[in-house]
């Protein structure tokens, strides 16, 4: 048998080459095209002779980047806070009372079975209903995200809460704590890793979602970063430099977050799926 210290060199080379061609090359191309001007597009991958940062300025102004960034950040941040506060307590209530009361047991299966309903199945009636309730803005869509996250988050949270011994709740109850106090001071702190998972999945979902904004946010001032790329696709037309500058601006925030939180994100995604 091979000794443990010895590196597997052929596999290392294959993986590095694969990463270079399939991951870094598209990213390099995105950045290079974003800083070139049209006269340098003869050879797409050639290193830029001159850097045209005005592409970023133009894309920034054309798509109204600050406005779209604010909208996307608003949806993402408000959703994640509201989701963590409401969904976690709901899951706690369900998980702890499932055996005591039919009501909670039925709700558990109600939420879980909704996992099988793909979004496109309810899409058409939802558009009509969202108009009736005036949900066609960033506040409305955030509200819908919080609610639509329930099935997945109930599933993840209940899996984690089941592992926490009920003696912990009972001890706190005897000390006179109300259910909300027990949850907030005893259970919620213990659930921290699960909360991280739910937070990561929620952020990824809302930041990158394209379908819900597409059907709900028709007003330019309410649109998200992802949606605005789709909307401006026609106006970019063959000005690829402008288009890629715009894509780069949208990718940068998420790449920065990934750079700093890579381990946490990967662990969170695994925990969410394996539960």
């Amino acid at each position, binding site marked *: 048998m091979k000794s443990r210290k010895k*590196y*597997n060199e052929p596999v*290392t080379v294959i993986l590095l080459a694969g990463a270079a061609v399939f991951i870094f090359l598209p990213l390099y191309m995105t950045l290079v095209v974003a800083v070139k001007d049209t006269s340098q597009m003869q050879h797409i991958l050639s290193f830029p002779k001159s850097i045209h940062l005005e592409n970023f300025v133009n894309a920034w102004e054309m798509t109204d980047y600050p406005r779209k960034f604010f909208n996307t950040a608003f949806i993402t941040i408000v959703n994640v806070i509201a989701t963590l506060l409401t969904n976690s307590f709901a899951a706690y209530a369900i998980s702890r009372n499932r055996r005591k009361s039919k*009501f909670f047991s039925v709700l558990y299966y109600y939420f879980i079975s909704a996992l099988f309903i793909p979004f496109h199945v*309810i899409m058409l009636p939802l558009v009509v209903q969202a108009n009736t309730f005036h949900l066609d803005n960033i506040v409305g869509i955030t509200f819908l995200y919080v609610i639509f996250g329930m099935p997945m988050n109930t599933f993840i949270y209940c899996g984690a809460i089941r592992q926490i011994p009920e003696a912990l709740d009972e001890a706190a109850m005897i000390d006179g704590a109300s259910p909300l106090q027990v949850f907030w001071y005893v259970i919620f702190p213990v659930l921290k890793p699960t909360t991280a998972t739910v937070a990561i999945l929620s952020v990824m979902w809302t930041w990158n979602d394209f379908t819900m904004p597409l059907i709900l946010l028709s007003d330019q001032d309410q649109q998200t970063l992802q949606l605005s790329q789709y909307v401006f696709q026609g106006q970019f037309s063959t000005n690829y430099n402008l288009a890629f500058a715009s894509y780069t601006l949208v990718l940068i925030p998420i790449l920065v977050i990934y750079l700093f939180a890579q381990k946490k994100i990967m662990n969170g995604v695994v925990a969410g799926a394996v539960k």
Partner: protein
Amino acid sequence: MKAKHWKVNPVYYIGVGIMAILFFTFHTVPFLKGVFYSFTDWKGFGDWNFVGLKNYGVVFSNKDILSAYFFTFKFALVSTILVNIVSLFLACGLSANVRFKSFLRGVYFLPYMLGMLIVGFVFNFIFGNLIPELGRAVKSDALSTNILGSSHAFWAIVFVTIWAGCAFDTLIYMAGLQAIDKEIYEAAALDGAIGWKRFIRVTFPLLAPSFTINMVLSVKSYLMVYDQIMAMTGGGPGKSTTSIAVMIYKQGLGHGQFAVQTANAVVLFIVVVVISVFQLRVLEKREEKVG
């Protein structure tokens, strides 16, 4: 104490009750409404009449809808298989004793972070401009044309799906590999199971739980394929790459087929449930057998 009057403290009822009512109103009601509309001729506004099963008749006879089903099934099958094969190889590679391990893992997971829409746009350009440029350089006619405008657009979409989808599946397989006891490998080595043989006889069966997760989630999400098609072909050329989800959006909201497409959505729902339940049954039985 209140708890004496109530078997369960009312705070719990309120906490879950609010969420349940909201969920019912904004998720279940649209779902039930969709089922209801599918038996009418509603256009999304104005008057409507009951038409019985007529919309379902259209779903099962309309050539465009049937070809969307054919495209979607073929796409889900091909993508699920290819994504899982590539992911298995990647996961094994990234779990081996390689240099720069955590860096490489981070790089291969990166596609998961990027929105599918922009990934689609970037590859649009690669297929439409970069590859034809290289094709002209090597004087190959096949490479010089934009694959997205040809009858092979299907494979371009599959390629992008693999590119983006492998990140998640690889991560799950890596977690599965990590959970395998190293002593099993040593015992297998004594029995002469090494290399490829070890993978088939030992590693792969032990990855059963990860395999179940990946198969079920892959099939479900690829049956709903939407973002990459909207970004890359918009369903074309012609309607050759129109998936069911794309069709529901395009025909349902723009082309006055609201009721027909709600029927289509109900059929899609049944298809997804049947396939998911069937998969879970089969794969969990397999887990029991090998576990």
